[in-house]
């Protein structure tokens, strides 16, 4: 309980220290910032060692029974060495050695990413814009024209084509083509407006999260402990 309460008080103090930046940059804010960077780095190192290096490299090589393996996996020496070469960039004159693992990572990532990216982000997305402009309701739903879906599909097609036209720069945006690109700008503006609204909502949520913490986890329990809650 003591450690839990201490944690809450430290978290509350750091939250207020960060909020103090609203007044102006100051020592408390800087201290909170540095503590955050230090704790984050330490946490990352600990998690990487415990969750990645131990089960994926150290146990399989030196203590295979820990991960239910019968024999040491000596092939892992190769990726282990490649990983160590990453650190060579800190050696004077050994910088070039770090290019090997980087080349490996870049090559493998590109090779695996390109085919699925074409599928997921190009073909599937293009496919999703090939929709009927006239949509009829199913007979079970009463039949007839489904105006809402039809209008939505028409807007989708017009919006996609007009926005793509705006990014076609090999022809001046004048005349009929210019009119289409202006429609594209209109769609872009709608998208930017929605993005702005969502961004405000997100930032607001972060503030709400902190205020919620301060009120329900810090102030109210403290007042209750003092007999004033």
């Amino acid at each position, binding site marked *: 309980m003591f450690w839990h309460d201490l944690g809450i008080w430290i978290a509350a103090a750091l939250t207020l220290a960060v909020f103090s930046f609203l007044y102006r940059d100051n020592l408390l804010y800087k201290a909170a910032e540095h503590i955050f960077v230090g704790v984050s780095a330490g*946490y990352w190192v600990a998690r990487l060692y415990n969750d*990645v290096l131990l089960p994926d490299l150290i146990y399989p090589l030196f203590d295979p029974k820990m991960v239910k393996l019968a024999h040491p996996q000596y092939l892992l020496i190769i990726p282990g060495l490649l990983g160590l070469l990453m650190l060579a960039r800190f050696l004077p004159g050994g910088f070039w050695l770090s290019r090997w693992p980087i080349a490996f990572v870049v090559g493998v990532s590109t090779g695996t990413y390109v085919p699925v990216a074409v*599928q997921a982000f190009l073909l*599937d997305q293009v496919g999703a814009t090939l929709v009927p402009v006239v949509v009829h309701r199913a007979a079970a739903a009463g039949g007839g024209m489904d105006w809402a879906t039809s209008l939505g599909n028409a807007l989708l097609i017009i919006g996609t084509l007009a926005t793509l036209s705006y990014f076609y720069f090999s022809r001046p945006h004048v005349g009929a083509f210019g009119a289409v690109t202006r429609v594209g700008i209109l769609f872009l503006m709608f998208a930017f407006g929605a993005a702005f609204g*969502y*961004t405000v909502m*997100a930032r*607001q949520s*972060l503030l709400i999260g902190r205020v*919620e913490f301060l009120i329900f986890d810090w102030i109210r329990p403290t007042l209750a402990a003092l007999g004033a809650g």
Partner: protein
Amino acid sequence: MLQEQGPTIWDRLLRVPRWVIYLIIAAAVIFPFLHPLRFPVEVSQRTRQLYDYIDKLPPGSVVCLAFDYGPSTMAELQPMAVAVTRHCFRNNLAVAGVALDPWGAALCDAAFATANSDGKKKEHVDFVNLGYKTGYSAVIQGMGLNIHEVYKLDNRKTPVGDIPLMKNVRTYQDLAIVIDLASSSTPQAWIAFAGARFGATVSAGVTAVMALDMYPYLQSGQLVGMLGGLKGAAEYEKLINQPDQGALGMDSQNLAHGAIVLLVLLANLGYVVTRRQARRRQER
């Protein structure tokens, strides 16, 4: 000699000191916590789509929750994690948590503990936290080949092969759905590698900033439903009839949004009026 006029109310509207805006927003955020206003929460189609998908899963199905976020965005994403986990537990679905963000594993533990506050669900039988792995594209693709090869130990260092829940869970074919709770671009990686390459069913719960980027995938059917920001969490809480952190924050969200819209309108009104006044002065 012309008498110099002081600034009008319209001029003042364009020069509202920053601290006044901070105070207005702070008041709008804090007030509902002290006096709840209980604004209604309307459930969107995208949230209902995910809810319906999970609701129709047969008991015993395994839902994979990816905790790809850290404490900086937990205000938006943790309520989603808790609400979805509660829904799974209520329907006797098993939940496997994975994390592509180092902070995610700890937040996964916290979400499971909150959703299982009555202690009815057993770890390793009804839920498991497989922990954090680095290199997200490699991890997602590796899970499509053999999850046990990628996650050898869970977050408590238990060999994954010894975990009852994971005995028959080897690839995406054994997972009913993967729901990525994300504050970065990981949903696209799940869509590309798990969805497009391995045919996994993918959904996402994302921060409001990212929500707009997810709509094309929602529309194309590459995502089965989506939870967007705190509102998405509040909507899901409403669907499972268990209002919590998400619903609690929505009053503040609504009031603060109202305050911001009002400030934007007033500032624009001030801008238009002062411009008109300046033009009139020039004409004279």
